[in-house]
Each structure stands twice: as C-alpha cells, then as structure tokens.
C-alpha cells in the first residue's frame, strides 16, 4: 500500500517522517546485533513475498503481510518495513524519498499495534489462535487503509471521496490478508513456533 509522490502536503510528509524516525529508532533499540541478521533476512523474505500476486476474481492483488511482520518482529517492523520500502523505491520506484516516512508509518504502525493486540493470543489454543491470526491480518490492512485515508484527508479536505474509496477498495484485500495471515501463522506455529515473538 503506497501513497505516490507528489500528493501529500508538507505537514503530512514531515509528520510521517518524524513518526517513522521515532518508530525506527524504537525498533532498532530493541534489536541486538544478533537479531539484525534475522530481521534483515526476514525483511528480504517479506520483500519477496510482497511481490506475490494472488488472484481475486478476474484481477489479482499483491500481498502486504504487515500483520505477519508485526507478529514476527514486533517493533522491529519499523526498521524492517522502512528498509523494504527503500528497496522498493530503488528497484521499482514505487514511492520515493519524500513519502518514505508516511508509507513506513502506514505499514508499520498497524503492524506494531496488531502485535500488541493479537500476539498474546497466538499461543493460546487452536481456535483462539485461528481467530486472532485472521483478525490480525484483517485489521492490520484495515488500519493501514485508514492511515492512507487519514494522510489524504489531512492533506486536503476535498480528498474525502478518494479516501473512502481507498478504504473500501481494500476490503477484499483485508479478507484475503486475513486468510493468508491465518494459514501462515498456523504454519509457523506448527513448524517453527520459536519464530513468533511473544
């Protein structure tokens, strides 16, 4: 989920950058050097996974997976997502330098929120784990869409319709992300439970 260059106003861009810097600093502080290799290579895996397109009726959407990032990395989501977005900007020019902060916040803040909301339940019994993993994937995208909408609204009140459209358009993505997150977390729980931070 990216906001393109050239749309947002100065105050929104600068607030985004400041929030992203704060989040990244918090994330880095928690990462010892022995977690950096883990975070970096997982960030690489998320980068690759975000290139996967899954079918949705006649079209396809690409995966976002910030719910999984949150559950796996906690506050580490901020630096991991910042790095992944910078790589995307350089490789594909999706987003660029001025929106890097806002886009990082859009993806990473929900990841951290969902980490606090849902990770306590992931290690509970299967039914609770399934529901909370689904909810995590769903809400993470929902919150991201809301943040995109908010960034647009703060830029220009006339962006109201377009903001609502962004949120509405992500509804099917939320449903799919819910399922993908659910199956993915169940997979990890079964195969390598130590990967999910608590």
């Amino acid at each position, binding site marked *: 989920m*990216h906001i393109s*260059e*050239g*749309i947002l106003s*100065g105050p929104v*861009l600068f607030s985004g950058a400041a929030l992203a810097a704060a989040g*990244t600093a918090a994330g*880095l502080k928690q*990462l*010892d*050097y022995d977690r*950096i*290799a*883990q*975070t*970096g*290579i*997982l*960030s*690489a*895996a998320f*980068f*690759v*996974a975000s290139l*996967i397109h*899954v*079918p949705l009726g006649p079209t396809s959407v690409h*995966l976002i*997976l910030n719910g*999984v990032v949150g559950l*796996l990395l906690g506050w580490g989501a901020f*630096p*991991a997502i*910042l*790095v992944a977005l*910078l*790589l995307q*900007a*350089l*490789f*594909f*020019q999706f987003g660029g*330098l*001025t929106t890097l902060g806002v886009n990082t916040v859009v993806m990473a803040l929900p990841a951290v929120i969902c980490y606090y909301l849902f990770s306590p339940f992931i290690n509970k019994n299967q039914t609770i784990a399934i529901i909370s993993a689904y909810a995590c994937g769903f809400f993470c995208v929902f919150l991201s869409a809301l943040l995109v909408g908010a960034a647009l609204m703060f830029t*220009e009140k*006339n962006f109201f*319709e377009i903001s609502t*459209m962004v949120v509405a358009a992500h509804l099917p993505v939320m449903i*799919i992300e819910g*399922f*993908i*997150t*659910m*199956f*993915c977390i169940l*997979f*990890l729980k079964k*195969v*390598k439970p130590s*990967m999910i931070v608590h």
Partner: protein
Amino acid sequence: MIEEPFASGNSIIHRIDPRFRVAAAILYSFTVALCYQFQPLIVALAVALLSVIFSGVGLKTVFKRLIVVNGFILLFWIVLPLTYKGKILYSLGPVDIYLAGIVFAAKITLKSNAILLILISLIATMTFATLGHTLSRFKMPDKLVFLLMITYRYIFVIAQEYQKIIRSIKIRGFKPKTTLHTYKTFAYVVGMLLIKASERADRVYNAMRCRGFTGKYNSLSDFQINIQSFIFILIMTGFTIGIILLEIQYHG
C-alpha cells in the same frame, strides 16, 4: 524478478560523488513536493528530465516505470474532477465537473513525475552498496545501514528460493484461483519462505561470529570529491532556489 536497471553506467551523473547526489535529491524532492504553482512545477519537471538525460539511463525503461507510477495518479484524474468542489467547469446532466479538481490532478501529475525522475537519475543510478555507505556518512545509525545491507544481499537468495517453491507447486498441477485452497497454498509458500529465511539468518549470523563480529559494523567506503561534484551541487542548489523563488512569486 528483481533488477537494478539503472545502477550501472558511466555517465556524468554516475561519476558524481554519491553523497552530493543523495543530498541534492533529497533537497530537490522535498522542495518540489511543497510547490503548488504550475510555473515552478513545470520547471521542476524540465530539470528532472534534463537530469535523466544526463544520467544516460535507458529512456525506454524509465518510460515503463513512469507508466506504472502514473497508473496510481490516474485514479486522481478520474475522481478529483468529480469531487473536488469549486468552480464548475461543465455539467453533464447530474454530474458536475470541477475545474479545481482537474487543476489539482494536473499538479499532482507534474510533481509526482518530477520527483520520480530525480530519484531515478540521481539515486537509482548508484549500486545499493554505495547508497548504504552514503547513508552511513549521513550519520544514519550503524544498525540501520547494516540491516539495509543484509536485506539487500539476501533478497536475491530468497527470491531464488521462492522460484524453487513456485516450481514445486507448478509441477503438482497448482493453478491459482479465487479459492481458499489457493490462499492456503500461498500462505504455505510464504511460511516456508520465512522459515528458510530464518534458518539462513542463523547460519549467516554464525558465519559473522566466526569472523570476529562483535557488533560494530565497519564500513570501507571512501569517497572522492571531484570538481564535477561541486559544480553539480551548485547547479542543483541553483535550480532548487529558482523553483522556490518561482513558487513565491506566483503564490496566490
């Protein structure tokens, strides 16, 4: 699946000190992002185009990238003229088309393309290794630079592992459809990828420890400042100031 089409080359821009390029790009991008008048935006786009031409990157590839990016902008062209309340330009029955919406969409388009062209010409023209070193010169935290390097290094390894898993699901007759089975399959692919990544991270960290790594990442980078770099930064600063002056002059 992942390429860096612009990184290699030997144009004037490629030879300018990366620190100067990064500084100029950041300054220029934010300045353009804050402009709202047509005059400075048109100049900004022209300067960015010039910069792309000097960087000698393949114009065809640049064009392809622009098409993708302008796809997002298209949404604004469709929605804003109908919703951006203001002076009505034209009424089609019950539907009003607003002039302000069209103006705003046009400005966004100019801005967006100018910023992206600067990104392509000044920053995408350096290898990631160089960018990492440059950022560490700008006092980015060591940990962040290191994270950046590791991520970049392993994207390609992970992408290869991804291709292999995709081959495996292909030979077993998998066809993506809008079904739960499909989503489950992709979730497993992602899960497997994450596990392989995590195991690899353990091995890499072990390799780092074996080579005496204790937490400080030392960078080898050395940059040479040449006269072109100074000329470049002078010119870019000049353009940036010019754009700011234009914005002030035509403001409101």
